[in-house]
Structure formats: C-alpha cells, structure tokens
C-alpha cells in the first residue's frame, strides 16, 4: 500500500479526501496515524451537521495525546464511520480503508482545488519531517 495514494487529495493538517460525485470521504493519512501512535478514541460530528473547510471537525486521541481533526472540505455530514468509533485502532491499521472518518455531501467542489495533490503532500510531509517538529 502506498503511504500517499495517488487517487486522493490532502490537507496540510494530514487529512485525505476521496471525492466520488458530490460525496467526499474523509480520513487521516498514514503519516498522521504514524505520528499519533495508537489511536484509542475518535470523536466525530453527528450525521446532519455541517463542517466547514479547514475548521475543526472532531478529535482523535492516541494513548499519548489528543489531536484536532480539521475538515479538508465543507459540506453536510451524511455518514460517520461507526466502525472507527467502536474500533479506533482501524485508524492505524487501515487509514485509507476502514479507518475513514466521515462522508460529506460537498458544498463546493471548487474547494478540492485548495487541497494538495499527492505529489505536493509528499513534499509537505518531507518538509514536516525535515523541520524536525511534530
């Protein structure tokens, strides 16, 4: 499995988006789960609520610490991943698969253009690692 799949768009805060028509699936990247360590708790917005691009959508807690999740895209939450709430370790084992967080109905497809391409995200995490901070 690629650690940065080519068919996704990325935020600088390490969320990914898989757009399919006007529905987008959102999760966190392999890099993010690796930085977090063992994920033990996930807090996600209710179905029917709306999320705004680059604002907080929920929280992921690892054994070590809590980290905010940011919405890479705006829209109405049409589904949240009940499996990941019950088994937060899916975020570690399948960040791009069963570890997804929410599905939203896209408010503005144009927002996708404000996200990073896989190439840009790869260099983004290269830079992040190079700067020595996390």
């Amino acid at each position, binding site marked *: 499995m690629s650690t940065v799949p080519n068919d996704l768009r990325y935020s600088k805060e390490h969320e990914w988006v898989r757009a399919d028509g006007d529905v987008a699936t959102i999760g966190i990247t392999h890099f993010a789960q690796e930085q977090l360590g063992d994920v033990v708790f996930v807090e996600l917005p209710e179905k029917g609520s709306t999320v705004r691009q680059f604002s907080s959508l929920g*929280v992921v807690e690892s054994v070590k610490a*809590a980290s905010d999740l940011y919405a890479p895209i705006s829209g109405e939450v049409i589904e949240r991943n009940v499996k990941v709430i019950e088994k937060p370790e899916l975020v570690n084992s399948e960040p791009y698969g069963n570890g997804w967080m929410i599905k939203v109905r896209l408010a503005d497809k144009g927002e996708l253009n404000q996200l990073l391409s896989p190439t840009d995200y790869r260099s983004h995490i290269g830079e992040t690692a190079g700067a020595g901070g996390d």
Partner: protein
Amino acid sequence: MATEAPTLRRTPLYDKHVALGAKIVPFAGYEMPIQYEGIVAEHRAVRSAAGLFDLSHMGEFGFRGRGAGAFVDRLVSSDIAGLAVGQARYGLLTNDRGTIVDDVIVYRTAEAEYLMVVNAANIAKDRAHVLAHLTKDVVFDDRSLDTALVAIQGPRAAGILATTTQDHSDSLPSFGVMPARIAAVKATVARTGYTGEDGFEVFIASNDAERVWDALLAAGSEPGIKPIGLGARDTLRLEARFSLYGNDIDETTDPIEAGLGWTCKLDKDFTGRDAIAAKKAAGPERKLVGLVVEGGVARHGHEVVKGGEVVGRVTSGTYGPTVEKNIALAYVPTALSKVGAVLAVRIRGKDVPATVVKTPFYRRPE
C-alpha cells in the same frame, strides 16, 4: 559560545535506542525513548512476556557508615530500620509540612550501606534535602551519573534473567536485593519495578550498560522481549496505580490524601511525621481516586465535575491497553470519593461521565 537551552543528557544506552528505532523526547533533562514499536504493543509485551527499560536517568544515592540506617530511617516515611540486609522498601521523602518531596525505594545492600533510588526530575532537589539533614556519621554520595539502571519486567523476566547469571538472582523474593553478575558484569539486582508485573531492576556502572542491555535483549528474544519506552511505562504504572511524581504527588499533596498513608510509619520519628499524623487524625479533605471515563480520554489537568461544578482535577489519565478502558487518577472531595460515585471529567468543554472505581485498575494474575 552564546547561551543555549540547557543541554540534554543522554544515558549510556542512547545509541541503542536510536538503533532500535526509538522516538526520542526530552524527559527530566534527558533525551529518552518514548516508544519503539508503539505504546500498546510494548505495554502488551510486558503484560504477556517481558519488556526491557532503560531507567538510567533515575537518581541513585548511596548512604554508608555507622549512622546510615538511622539517618535514612529519619529521612524516609517507611520502616527503613526494619530492613534486613538484602531487602528493599518503598517510601516517601516528606518535608516538615508533611507534603511529598519525592517517592523513593530504599535498598539495604550491606550491613551499613543503603541505596536510594529517586526520580530523575528530583535529583538536585533531593540531594539538597538530604544534605540539609545529613549527620556526621553518614557518608552520602550521589552516584546518579555513574550508575545505569536497566529494568526487565514481565512474567518471563525471571526466566530470561536466569540465563544471564549464575547467582540465582532470578529467585530473589519480591523486594529482595543482592549483588550479582549479569552477563559477567558486576551488578546489584533487585526484584522491584513499576509496571504491576514481576520483574527486576539491575544497577550497573554506566560503562557496562550496553553489555547488560544487549545480553538481556538477546536472552529474551525467544520469549518475545521488547524494549519499552516511557509511553508504555506510564500506561503500565497507571493501570497498576503507581503514583507518578509531578503528576499525582508533589509538594502540594500529602501522603494521606494521595492514598500513601500505608508508607508512613507514624510510630517512628521522621521528617514530616507530625504534620502527617495531624492530617491523618483530621481526615483528608480530598482523596486521590481511580476513575473509569466513558467517552473520552481524561488527561493530567482536566477538571472533575459534579452537577456542573468543578470539584477536582485529573492528575493522570490514559487509555489502559490491558484493562481496555479510559482510566484516570484524580483528586476529589472525600464525600465524592466512594467507589461507585458518578462524576464527570470536563474534556474539551464537554462533561464526560466518570465513575470512581477500586484500584489498582489492573492486578496481575496469581
């Protein structure tokens, strides 16, 4: 050179941690491994097989001479005078106000020789505390920088240790201590630890640390020993409800409210004795209790709430990988400290239900 941030120290095992892929963080003035493979995997290895810890950052104080036993007995809350050679005991350094300066283990290593292990962050403070009380018939030396400490903990620890020694230190009783050779290196071995499992702590000269570390890792490879970072050390100790100095206990807390009254031998004279006896007689206003939190991970500093009102504070909190619950320690008013009391922890502005439970959260199977 211009002044920079204080330089962090490295233990003699630093290169080993890097080679093992550890994530290194600053801790108590040292660059320490927080995790290697991952906190949960390391935690489980200690509960099911064995784990190896580098604790060389911790402080080691030596006391010897005619007056050593009586001196340490006056300094420490527990019954040090009652230790036979080859025995160790947990206890507290307390001040005249009866609050906690540090928690320590004292080992009687010879007739008139005692070893005290203190928390890394407290070495300088404890040294000053000792020196302020020191009497002429005691020779005190702080060996912290010359001493390495490696702990091997877990149900397979004794079997692994046995293959590296001919001194039978693997059959020490709990809290026993003896001189031994581990991997042909001169060591002091004790059956003590901070994980809630059976295990040993091995004191060696810093120069010998790599040799002992490598020997124990190699001897443990078949049973599945893993190197364990500070992350899992914290989850292990919290499940076993061992206090962490700086989180659960400090100079604003006293042994009675911290649930450490059992470490205080009040029918002897020690620094802080009178204040602690008074607190015990009056009864504590608050108590350190165990909480199970439903729907979020409580962390150090979170508020404890009852009926919308802040009544206390979380001192330690994590997900417990063995108990598979979000567990915490918190100071709460004595009236709300009974097992079964339903409180809440304020996590990111939300009051999340928390129930007072019996501790330890985890007790190892007999």
